[in-house]
């Protein structure tokens, strides 16, 4: 008998966007308050896990056609590259740069390369968590 879980699916569709917003908020708040790439990545991954619980794997992979192993690799690559950028400028590895910009909508904003590093961390966390869950669930 096919179980009808329309309530779960509908609630998931709404809640996933809230979770994604919280994830992005946590990611950007990491510099001055609790949060950062690791937590942001975990919360982001939890949104994918909720989608996997509510729907089946094939639907999710059709909707989000990423190979999550490569997402993890891409994350590590971004994180290393921000360190390598310092080498290009003759600074010690992982030296970070920051500066204030006057952006059109946000006004005076401080942008730092550490955000790119954290983006790499977040992608690596998402990739690893989703890969683990997908590869465990495939065998059952």
């Amino acid at each position, binding site marked *: 008998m096919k179980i009808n879980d329309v309530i779960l699916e509908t609630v998931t569709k709404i809640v996933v966007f809230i979770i994604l917003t919280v994830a992005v908020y946590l990611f950007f708040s990491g510099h001055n308050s609790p949060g950062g790439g690791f937590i942001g990545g975990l919360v982001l991954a939890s949104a994918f896990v909720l989608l996997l619980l509510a729907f089946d794997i094939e639907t999710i992979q059709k909707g989000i056609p990423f190979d999550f*192993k490569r997402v993890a690799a891409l994350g590590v690559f971004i994180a290393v590259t921000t*360190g390598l950028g310092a080498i290009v400028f003759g600074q*010690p590895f992982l030296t970070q740069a920051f500066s204030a910009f006057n952006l059109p909508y946000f006004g005076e904003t401080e942008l730092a390369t550490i955000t790119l590093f954290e983006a790499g961390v977040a992608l690596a966390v998402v990739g690893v968590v989703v890969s683990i869950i997908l590869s465990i669930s495939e065998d059952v």
Partner: protein
Amino acid sequence: MINLLILPIIIPFVTAVILIFFQKNIVIQRWISTIAAAGGLTASIILVRTVYHEGIQTLNLGSWEAPFGITLVSDMLSALLVTATSLITLCCILFSFQSIGKERERSFYYPVVQFLVVGVNGAFTTGDIFNMFVFFEVMLMSSYVLLVIGGTKIQLRESIKYILVNITSSALFVIAVAYLYSIVGTLNMAHISQRIAEVDQPAILTVLAVLFLIVFGLKGAIFPLFFWLPGAYYAPPAPIMALFGALLTKVGVYSILRTYTLFFYHDTGFTHELLTVLSLITVILGSIAAIAYKDMKKIVIYNIIIAIGVITYGIGAMNADALTGSVFYLIHDMIIKAVLFLLVGLIVSITGSSDYTKFSGLLKHYPLLGWSFFISVLALAGIPPLSGFVGKILIVNGGFSKGDIVGALIILMSSLFVLYSLMRVFINGFWGDPAGSMKKPELKIGSMLFPIIILVISSISYGFFSEWMNMYITQAVEVLIDPAVYIDAVLGNTQTS
């Protein structure tokens, strides 16, 4: 270029990440990993030259000053070990092409090997005790994957034991670092050394020295903590076994060497005596086990344990001769163990058996293989012109000058057992009736023997040009004897704690 000393860590790291994107394309994976390994070797040789001419190289990551940020320190010892690691990795990768099998190559074999090198090179280069823990974990996680990759029954069983033991020892490492941090309040190794010199070795530091010995002894397999090693190293295929045998335990030994010469050198009465006794028991038990087995892999595995004991005996003796000997022997042993594991792997893939009584007369069919095996056995035992000689004679010399005649004699006697244990393989397997084995034409013997020959030649020249190597090793030992050199290089002369 100030970032030179990070290149042996960064090159394999970036390579590993790039290789993940080419998971299915084996040919590209092989090419990239070979080029990267060669690049890493070149960078580390340049690093050795730089350290030789300009002294200890330090790099403050992220431009944060020494005790506050993570500092990478490349003195001669770590530069030489990084070079040996890169050479061994290159040869093991070349050996893998014909032997590891397509199935494993598709399951991220080459990226994981590169991650293993990141961990090993990082652990050799770091100047921060917690960063060392992190690099240990990078190395260990890659070794878990390499141990289980392929998923045969024996690999699964042994990797459970191996992971259990290593998680326990990693937890102990964290606890030890926490204790140390609560006493000295810093994690930078040079700064720790300075602070320990100020507090003048209270009893808690002796306890910590023993705790660190337990941690690194579990990683490096000294008595009574080597119980996990024979099973775990028996399981994986030959090139992985060679990487493990050459690199993993040596990182543990390097850490003992570093902590016992940089941190705990003030009150050597108890700690170094303990290390000496444990290493002598390690040598004795390893020798007994090495002659007890008829299985070539087991024999070589127990020879690792003997070598660990010999090196730690040199550290325990703690005089210039013995430390020089330990450094000589450490590098020699990394190379020669890689050679032996690769040779054993090659012999097993020819004869189909690792029991040397099951075949004979292999020398008739494979003369080059036979004579490289013969030379490497002589080098392992320490026959004079070859590489094992200088290290062992210096360690024995150091033991005698300390007045420990029994210990030095045990080290000398162990050479006989080493020679006997592997010469039996040569006599029974390579000599005798050629009908006891046959040629396997489908095996591409040339391309598998090529990396072995490179390693044998480097081992031979390491022995023949030991006078020339001695310039480098003397510089490495200067730092070990006088920690002030290390502290000055990291913190600078103006630094007051």
